[in-house]
């Protein structure tokens, strides 16, 4: 499965990850979101230490980088679990018991949305539509789409991810 963030600690301690990625985009300031995506993909989150590095590389202020990271829901400031499960909370999923799924997911993982399980296996996040609205309720596990979810199927998924 894709998107495992097992290299977190190694990468974070590499001070140059951010500048390497920035140079991939020719240090162009308009590519900031792309850079942050790549950074998050490779490191698992956007570390605080990367912000001044990016500001310098792109020749923008640190406040601007900070502003962007905090504006977009997708960017994570804290390390994520080995897997990220994004549960859709929007209307089409609501019409198919999406709220029950969301409740069950939080109960099952003993976390709230935005949190990571104590064993570091799963980060649970809320999203608003995955374009899987005719096979709702839906979620995304790392980059794998899953539809017609039920609390039972969610339990099975959690077991699979823990193993």
């Amino acid at each position, binding site marked *: 499965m894709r998107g495992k963030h097992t290299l977190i600690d190694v990468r974070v301690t590499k001070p140059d990850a951010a500048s390497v990625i920035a140079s991939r985009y020719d240090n162009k300031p308009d590519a900031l979101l792309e850079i942050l995506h790549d950074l998050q993909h490779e490191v698992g989150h956007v570390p605080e230490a990367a912000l001044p590095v990016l500001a310098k590389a*792109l020749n923008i202020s640190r406040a601007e980088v900070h502003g*962007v990271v905090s504006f977009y829901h997708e960017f994570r400031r804290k390390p994520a679990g080995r897997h990220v499960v994004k549960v859709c909370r929007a209307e*089409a999923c*609501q019409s198919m018991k999406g709220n029950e799924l969301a409740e069950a997911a939080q109960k099952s993982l003993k976390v709230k949305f935005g949190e990571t399980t104590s064993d570091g296996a799963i980060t649970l996040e809320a999203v*608003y*539509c*995955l374009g899987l609205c005719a096979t*709702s309720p839906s979620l995304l596990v790392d980059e794998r*789409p899953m539809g*017609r979810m039920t609390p039972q199927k969610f339990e099975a998924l959690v077991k699979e991810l823990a193993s």
Partner: protein
Amino acid sequence: MIKVYVPKDSAARAVGADEVADAIVAEAAARKIDVKIIRNGSRGLLWLEPFVEVETAKGRVAFAPVEAGDVKSLFDSKFHEGGKHKLSLGLTEELPYLKNQERLTFARCGITDPLSLDDYISHGGFVGLKKALTMKGAEIVAEVTTSGLRGRGGAGFPTGIKWKTVHDAKAEQKYVCCNADEGDSGTFADRMVMEGDPFMLIEGMTIAGIAVGANKGFIYIRSEYPDAIRVMKDAIRIATTAKWLGQNIQGSAHSFSLEVRRGAGAYICGEETSMLESLEGKRGMVRAKPPIPALIGLFGKPTVINNVLSFAAVPYILAEGGKAYENYGMGRSRGTLPFQLAGNFKQGGLVEKAFGITLGQLINDFGGGTATGKPLRAVQVGGPLGAYLPASQLNLQMDYEAFAANGAMVGHGGVVVFDDSADMAAQARFAMEFCAIESCGKCTPCRIGSTRGVEVIDKIVAGIARDENLSLLDDLCQTMTDGSLCAMGGLTPMPVQSAIKYFPEDFDRPAKMQAAE
């Protein structure tokens, strides 16, 4: 060799299409049967995914919905030779759901291998672009104007007029930006185009570039669509190698290059000026208009911004003529709209029809009613900012003006149905909550009003000074409608007020015990 089609559309993958494809490969190998799997886009009969097809002398036959566990028995009944099986649906093209559609934009989706240029070309691809390469920019713009095409992203602004503004603007550099943020819940047509027929979007954007004199384009795709991002990037690479993109397209004097940019989970970035800010690497703060992006857009340059479906309609318009497209539709809503039946539908999926079909026909004739089998209570058309309509409104025709006249909107064509278990006060609360979460924060009515809205609805539901709070909510909605810079704050009152208007009983129930949150 036998050709078997197993969709790679993410909705199909979400319900096991990859596992089905793997199982077919393994079973075919075990039985020494020469099978070629083609991972096509989806035909749009999403309740039947995974929707497997086999090519036969009579045409493609369908088996659906297939689970990996069905594959052995499918081979036992010689499905690969068109043999009957309990999942047999017969010839795909004869299925009423498909046969009764008017597929202009979705003519190819699900039929071809999305990343095969040969498939694309042999199914009518690039006919429009080849014509455009021989035309003057103004002639292309005129053709699009003739078609009557209006923006499919929600606002319904005439595409020809927008293109003319950019065409007429004098500038060294112009841009074409595709809004593929598809933030509206209950919509997935953009995603299906990008995953299932990506060259069509490339062709439409390239035609736009030639029409207005832009040599550079961006596709802004929401990060919630990893598959679409991957397919679009691959398609751009393939098209560039084959000289359908890049310098001197097909040996002509025209050049056009494309780049994919990812969104980052902000609904407001679907608003066009917010998207421009995001494309420039900034926070998605909405810009005041004027200036309009057609004149001062990306990096301050004249910019065409259109939705995926707007661009995707253009190859047909160029190939068949604007008049052919204009022949479909009603009133000032010309052409077709790929409607998306989402949520609690027995037969959810993609239905492309000319404007003028009624909401009821979409819901009952195509959608087959609710998935749960319970009575339909409410329909939300046009995404999270769209009105909630009751069953008594199902005779409404799908038409921009007819909807607007009824305090609703067609938007991006998403239709979400709720059965009688829906709590419309909770839906109204969610609309306010969503606005609070997604507001860009630039103006007070939206930023603060939405948070107040949640609180007031909570009080109403709790039975605290109900009448006063209902009128307070009404004032609040009015303030948001009148005082918001963009439609995020401006239209959030639409789902809220329609819920109150059509489902007042949900706001007047005995006070519930405060839920233990």
